């Protein structure tokens, strides 16, 4: 971090920012948001960094940014997904060439196990998760919630844990829970047969 301290910051003129400067600032904020999230963001999330509720305005700006990225010669791209969500990602043909540099797991083994159990049995009560995974799973559940991989939802009188859209996006699964479970069971069944 120390190196960034004396970095030149976006130069600001003395007077109030011109419309073009404001627009440039908004584009950079959208770029920053897409970069740090590393996942698809919807227009509400993108609008929140611009302090606007206007989906229309946000969408216009993010499309300008997409255009910027597509005309520039770069390894990165910004894509529009269905449901008006946008994601910054590496262009596919670079992936195999650099993936050896990706060596940090999303989660260590304990929390990953807890996540896999929740994904497979969802919606599942926290009590059940702790029974199966042990007391330390309280910490896992908290971490998984903090990371946005799972969420708690009311299920009858108690709370149940389920995976989030971010979970589905990360692992390339469908957002529909029932279909996702079928998908997981099928992949899991295949994996078991292979052994």
């Amino acid at each position: 971090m120390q190196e960034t301290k004396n970095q030149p910051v976006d130069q600001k003129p003395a007077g109030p920012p011109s419309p073009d400067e404001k627009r440039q600032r908004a584009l950079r904020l959208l770029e920053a948001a897409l970069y740090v999230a590393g996942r698809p963001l919807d227009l509400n999330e993108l609008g929140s960094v611009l302090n606007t509720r206007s989906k229309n305005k946000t969408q216009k700006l993010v499309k300008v940014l997409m255009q910027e990225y597509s005309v520039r010669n770069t390894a990165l791209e910004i894509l529009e997904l269905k449901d008006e969500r946008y994601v910054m990602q590496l262009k596919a043909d670079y992936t195999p060439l650099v993936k050896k540099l990706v060596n940090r797991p999303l989660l260590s083994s304990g929390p990953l196990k807890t996540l896999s159990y929740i994904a497979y049995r969802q919606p599942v009560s926290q009590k059940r998760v702790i029974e199966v995974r042990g007391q330390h799973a309280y910490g896992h559940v908290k971490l998984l919630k903090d990371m946005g991989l799972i969420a708690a939802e009311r299920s009858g009188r108690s709370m149940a844990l389920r995976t989030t859209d971010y979970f589905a996006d990360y692992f390339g699964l469908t957002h529909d829970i029932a279909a996702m479970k079928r998908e997981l069971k099928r992949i899991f069944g295949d994996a078991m047969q292979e052994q």
Partner: protein
Amino acid sequence: MSAVVKKPFYLRPPWNILFELSKLEKLTPWNVNIAYLLRSFLSEMESTGKVDFRASGVALDSSALIYLMKSKLLLTLQEPPAPPKPPQDFVPPPLFLPLRQELTSTTIQNLLEVLDEVLKGEKMLRLDRVVAQPVLPAVSDILPQFEMFLAEIELQMEKLYEVLCEKVKGAGIIEFSTLVKGVARIEAVRTFILLLFLAQDGKVSLWQNEETEELYIAVGSLNLARDQKPAS
């Protein structure tokens, strides 16, 4: 005037302590048995037949002062010890994490690999439950024993109640120390527990003198036992 004015009794020890404030302040309050002083002061006054309200007032005031001194000491004792001073050391300012998009290597395959292990754990949990079930004694195995235990307690309570009724005749009250005089310690403990059961049922009343720690037992509810006939 030749008649010698006799010093009132309360200016003699031990009661004089209640009437000489300068002495009072030099005392260790724990050494003063207020209950004893006041009780004996009253009985002395009763026996002489000379009721002196001023003296009673001063005695009451001094007692309150001694209580206050005791309370202050207690409060001082109860004050939590001062927390140890944290060692002085230079704590550098926080290092702020730069934000970097970092792709992670965990794949759906990794997720499924660990799922296998987790589901095995889940199966074990079910097996544990199945195994655990027959080991638990059936309800019918426990209940007769428990009922016998309760019946035995009730029998003992009845016996003790009879003994108490016999012993309190006349006085209405009996001290616990008298009741268990000469019995083994374990028997005294049993008697005490049975007394608690009897008190719970409202068959006896218990109260304790805080000074002497003596426990007093009255058969029935306190007032009824002494002065009135129980309502039918």
